Every structure is written in C-alpha cells, then in structure tokens.
C-alpha cells in the first residue's frame, strides 16, 4: 500500500488538541500512520525525587499535584500506602467519604473527557453542554472541600473534612441531575451519525493486545476485559458497596465512550449508596510523624485506570523511595498500537480516547533521543528560518 514517500508529522508539544505539552512523531504514508514515536518528557518535573526530600504530611499535597484531574486518586493511593506502613486504618466513615469523593471525581473526570472528545471531533456544542453540566459536580466539590479542583480531602489516617447532613440534599440533587444528563448523552452518542462515523471502528485494540501491552482502566474494559481495581483489589469502602464492572467489547473509541458513560451512571449509584449507608463516627485518627521501616504497594482505580504507588520507608519522617505509576503511562504502548494503521485525521480522537493525562505520567520521563534525534534537530532548524520580520514600526 506504499504510495512512495513517508512524511513525518510532529504532533505537539504545543497543540490545540492537547492541553498539555507532549510530542508524538508520526510517520505517515499517504493518510495512513505507519509509525509512532512518542516523546513525552515535557511534563517531567522530578516528583519522585522530591518525595524523598519532604515529610509525609507535605507529601500529601505533592501527591495531589501529580495530577489535577485525578488528584483524589493519587492522594487516596498515597495515604493508603502510608497508613499501611503505619499500621493504622482510616475510620470507616472516612473510607466511605473517600469512596464518595472518588466517585464524584470519576464522574467529573469522565465528563471532562467526553467533552474533550467531542471537542476533538469538532462537536463544540456537545462539549459546551457537557462542561456546563460538569459544573454541578464541581460545585459539590467546592461545597464539601472548599476548592473545585485539588480537594485536599485525604490525609494520613482519614479525611480532613466531613460530609455534613446539611450537604446531603444538594449532593443528591446534583447526582440526580447528572444521572439525567448522562442518560441523555448516552442517547446522543448512540444516535448522532457524525459521532458514530468518527468513533466506530477507530483505534481498535484487540483484547489480546490489550492484555499483552498491559493496558489499564476503561481502555482494557472497552476491549471486553473485566478488570477493575475497585472490584479485584477493594480499597477504602468498596468491599461494602455493590457495583458492576462495566465492560464493552467493541474495542474502539465508541466502546470507550460507552464504558465511560456507563461508569458515570454506576458512579452516581455508588455515590448514592455510600451517602445513604455512611456510618457515623470519627473521620480521622491521629498518626505519628515518624513512619516505621517497611515497604508497601498501594493500588487505586483512578478514573483513567489502575494507579499504583510503591512506598519504602526507613523509619524517619521522610520516605526512602516513592514510586508512582500513573494509568496514562500504562496505556501508552496500547495507544501506539491503536494509532498504527489508522488515519491521520483520527489521531486526535484516538489520542484523546485513552484520556491521556501527561501530567501524571511525566513525573518520570522516557525519551527516545537517538531515534528522535533526526526530528528533534530538524524542527529547530526549520523554526530558525522563521525569522521574524516586523513590518510595523
């Protein structure tokens, strides 16, 4: 199918489809992608090293700032790990609150994602509607935690703020609204021809590849594999709440959309159940500053998939080693697989399909300098030619 020359198209690091700097180099034959080389160190900040230099309390906020969309997942994972090292367990009420916050976060994250996907395919109206409805959840967050994003709810040994009875009606009202709207969007997505045209059969990831390439979260579930940390490895209060693991076997973008939308509905149900069955009691236990020696692996189902933290302590107030693997990094090999053989015009939607969050991923970098050198050098050369010329004085 070769039509002769292979064109190299860079995508990013500053690109309207990406709200974050990342770079993909695509080798394109005609309109077909034949090779993908990601280069995603632009968000690398070196957080893992910083973890070793800060006290456990200060690290909560650093963990939160690994990612702005799934901040609660990161702090839950972090506090769980440290609690396990300390040998304490958060009170049950705190764990219920964690579940509620996690599910609300999942709803807002998926809503955000669906909006962005709509934006990728030029469907701005849908994007605007979804983001308008998403504000409901953000208002709830602002009420509970005092901030729209970065809720700072988790702390070692529990949660910082309680959900009072006075807040219940507003939360429930918000959940009802969300449920109604999500059902509507589910209908829109399945009936709007232009969306179906763009999303069906695009970015195929076969179940076998998904497993081999260690994909996580909704990507894996959209390939028909039942895998959810909440169910398989319950944390917080998930073992006490009944819920379904949503799967879809379309393996394409449409099924990823469906999985996420269904998960939002499921999230509404979980949050409702948790709100109703939340036990009374304290929300946090006091913990010592020093953490005994040990190591722990902590896993959480973030909105984007399995999040895993590894902590090693050395008996001081600072960790010895802290390792974070965010879901997006786990999905990158799968992403490259999905992009191969696809159309150039499908790149943004496929890329958006994994719900990339490079902020999470790039605490560690991986750059293939040698292979990319060709491009890395040509781009500045090209740009140097763009000498600015001021016509106005």
């Amino acid at each position, binding site marked *: 199918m070769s039509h002769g020359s292979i064109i190299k198209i860079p995508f990013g690091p500053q690109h309207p489809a990406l709200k974050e700097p990342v770079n993909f180099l695509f080798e394109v034959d005609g309109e077909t992608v034949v090779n993908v080389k990601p280069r995603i160190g632009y968000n690398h900040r070196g957080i893992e090293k910083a973890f070793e230099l800060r006290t456990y309390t200060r690290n909560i906020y650093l963990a939160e700032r690994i990612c702005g969309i799934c901040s609660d997942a990161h702090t839950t994972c972090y506090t769980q790990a440290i609690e396990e090292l300390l040998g304490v367990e958060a009170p049950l009420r705190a764990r219920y609150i964690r579940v509620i916050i996690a599910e609300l976060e999942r709803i807002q994250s998926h809503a955000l994602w669906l909006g962005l996907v709509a934006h990728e395919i030029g469907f701005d109206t849908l994007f605007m509607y979804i983001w308008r409805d998403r504000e409901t959840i953000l208002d709830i967050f602002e009420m509970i935690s005092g901030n729209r994003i970065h809720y700072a709810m988790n702390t070692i040994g529990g949660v910082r703020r309680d959900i009072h009875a006075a807040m219940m009606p507003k939360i429930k009202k918000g959940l009802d609204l969300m449920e109604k709207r999500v059902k509507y969007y589910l209908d829109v997505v399945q009936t709007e021809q232009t969306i179906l045209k763009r999303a069906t059969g695009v970015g195929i990831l076969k179940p076998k590849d998904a497993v081999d390439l260690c994909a996580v979260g909704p990507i894996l579930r959209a390939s028909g594999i039942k895998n959810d940390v909440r169910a398989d490895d319950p944390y917080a209060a998930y073992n006490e709440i009944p819920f379904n693991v949503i799967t879809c076997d379309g393996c394409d973008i449409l099924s990823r959309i469906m999985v996420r939308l269904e998960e939002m509905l499921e999230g509404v149900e979980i949050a409702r159940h948790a709100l109703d069955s939340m036990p009374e009691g304290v929300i946090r236990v006091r913990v010592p500053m020093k953490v005994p020696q040990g190591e722990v692996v902590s896993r959480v189902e973030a909105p984007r998939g399995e999040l895993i933290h590894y902590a090693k302590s050395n008996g001081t107030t600072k960790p010895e080693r802290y390792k974070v693997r965010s879901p997006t990094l786990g999905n990158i090999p799968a992403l490259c697989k999905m992009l191969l053989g696809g159309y150039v015009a499908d790149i943004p939607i496929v890329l958006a399909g994994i719900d990339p969050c490079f902020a999470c991923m790039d605490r560690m970098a991986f750059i*293939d300098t040698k292979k990319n050198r060709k491009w890395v050098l040509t781009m500045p050369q090209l740009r140097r030619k763009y000498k600015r010329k001021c016509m106005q004085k």
Partner: protein
Amino acid sequence: MEKENEIVEMLKEFLKENFVKANIPNRRRIFVHIKKDALKDTVKYLVKDLQFKHLSTITGVDLGKKIEVIYHLAYKGSIELSLRLTVSKKNPSVSTITHLIPGAVLYEREVHELLGVNFEGHPDLSPLILPEEWPEGVYPLRKEHELAYLKEITSKKSKREKRN
C-alpha cells in the same frame, strides 16, 4: 490468604535455590525476593502458568551499594506480586522481559533512565536522557546525587543557553 500462600509455595518449588525469601504483608500482596539470574524463567512461569499477565510497573530502588529492581505483577488484577531482585551498582544489568510482556518496554526504559539499570536484550534501550542536554551517567533517582547537584545541572543548562 490461602491463595497467596499457595502462590508462594509454588514459586518456592519452582525456583528452588534461586528463591531467597518471600513475605505476605497484607491481603493480596506478595513480596518475593529471587536471584537475578532466575528472572526470565520466573516471569515466564508466572505469566504462562500462574496467570500473572498484567505488569503493573517496574520500580527501581537505590539501596546504596546495590540497586533493587521490583517487578509488580498482577494476577487477574487482584493479587499484586512484587518480584524483587538486586543488582550491583557497579554493573547494574538484568535481562529484559519485553518478549514475555510487551507492555514492559516503557517501564524498563524508565528504570534505565532514572537509575541506570541496563536491561539486556531490550529492543530499544538507547540512552534515555531527561532533557536533551542531561549529562550522561547522572541518574537522578540514585541516592548519591543530591538535589542541589541536580539543580546545578539544571541551572548550568539554562546559563549555557543564555550565552548562545
């Protein structure tokens, strides 16, 4: 905890003298320490026979004189087995597992880049350097590099640019 014990027993039997130690700190968590040379066979055994198909990540830890590499494998998403081995810091190398688990490509690169562990047989283990001008042989997550030193590299880079 039955399943966890069972897995440890099976591993013990499979590894024989390559088995160093194992502990089960919590439900669904297993830490197994093995000898370096047995890695390939162990991972193959885990993936093919014990259904540990999902590699969550690979962690590298600097222990001072040695570097520890930990493979976090998941059994059908539930039991997380951390397979640990140590390599010497002078010649940190271990064989790759990418042919068994293709998803390990990026994790191995990451450990290679940040801790300088060499994965033998990795398809594409070209120098993975943080910013383009990051000096070779400086692995930021190794303990011997203080933050001040790393920051100095950072500022040097900016100064050089300013001169240009």
